[in-house]
């Protein structure tokens, strides 16, 4: 990344959009890798981003950016965060995951399926369609919380979480998925 201030950093980051688009994905990967001075496709984009972003943050802020991640954002340490955005998003994810868990429980038990299905924002579809809806809801909530944050730590946190959502979305690959499906189902290890 070219040296500069936080404003410069944020302005130079590639725009992120919730799309499973190879072109967008390659552009974001290229820019982040180029800025970070890496070329390997195997490296983690989030690590590139965080590695560069912390150069413009205080130690305390850097630590906060480093520990926040999508997988554990629902935890109480984030729900009790001093950063309002983190607190709100953590509470949202906690409630959202809770409603999904209730929905899944109801779906397992067909007798309660109809009443509980009404309370989830997820439209029934294929596993892929449903998972994309989940990611989109997480994405849109971040968009909603992003207003007013342009060149601060919160903006970097939002960028990091957006990037994590996209990385997961981009990991959904039909070819790899079918290979996995075949390797699991065609392995019949009975005697």
């Amino acid at each position: 990344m070219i040296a500069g201030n936080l404003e410069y950093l944020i302005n130079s980051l590639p725009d992120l959009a919730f799309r499973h688009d190879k072109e967008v994905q390659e552009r974001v990967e290229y820019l982040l890798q180029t800025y970070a001075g890496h070329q390997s496709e195997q490296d983690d984009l989030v690590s590139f981003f965080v590695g560069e972003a912390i150069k413009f943050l205080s130690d305390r802020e850097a630590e906060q950016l480093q520990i926040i991640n999508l997988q554990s954002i629902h935890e109480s340490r984030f729900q009790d965060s001093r950063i309002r955005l983190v607190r709100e998003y953590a509470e949202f994810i906690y409630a959202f995951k809770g409603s999904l868990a209730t929905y899944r429980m109801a779906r397992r038990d067909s007798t309660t399926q109809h009443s509980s299905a009404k309370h989830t924002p997820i439209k029934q579809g294929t596993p892929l369609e449903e998972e994309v809806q989940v990611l989109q809801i997480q994405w849109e909530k971040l968009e909603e919380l992003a207003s007013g944050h342009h060149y601060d730590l919160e903006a970097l946190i939002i960028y990091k979480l957006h990037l994590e959502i996209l990385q997961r979305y981009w990991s959904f690959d039909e070819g790899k998925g079918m290979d996995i499906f075949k390797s699991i189902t065609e392995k019949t290890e009975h005697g």
Partner: protein
Amino acid sequence: MDRKILMNKNTLAALKLELKEYNSALPVFEMKEQQLKQVVQAVEESILRLRQEIKQVAMETKKWAAVLADREVDPSNLVELEQVITKPREIAGARITEFVEIKFGDKDFDLFLTPLWVDTATDMLADQKTRQIMLDLERKKLDVLQEELYEARRMKNALKEVFIPETIENIRKIEIYLGDVERLAIGCAKLVKKKKTEKKMTV
């Protein structure tokens, strides 16, 4: 079957007994062949149906398979085959293995922490794996049945085209031979009697 036979009444009796046994064994092999043919056809149809189902499900899965590449979950841990329960069965002398039930390890996923797709994908993976195992068992069953059918057909043909015709022919040969011998003996006896009568008359 080219064997030397003794042209006597004992051999004739033994051959007639053999022929009786062959004639009673032939319908058994014919029935066995018929029964096995029907079962083989049913198993072939079952294999075809399972193959079509597997292909159809794979095509359906293509629509959502991308999610199986999710970096958050290792799908190979979703389905753990615990036990395939089978039972032995005998069809027309063929010992085969019949599918009864399949048991997968209980996966009590944390519904809060695991992604939503895991539920449906787990069921679909287990169902497809079950079809695949059933297909494997049906293929093995078909191999055993076809082997038994081949054996039954071979025995039927051997009886029908070799053993029975050869035995009938041998019986016919012995009967002709014994008939000739008997006629010769009668002829000889008549000749001796005639000679004796002529001798008496001249004396």
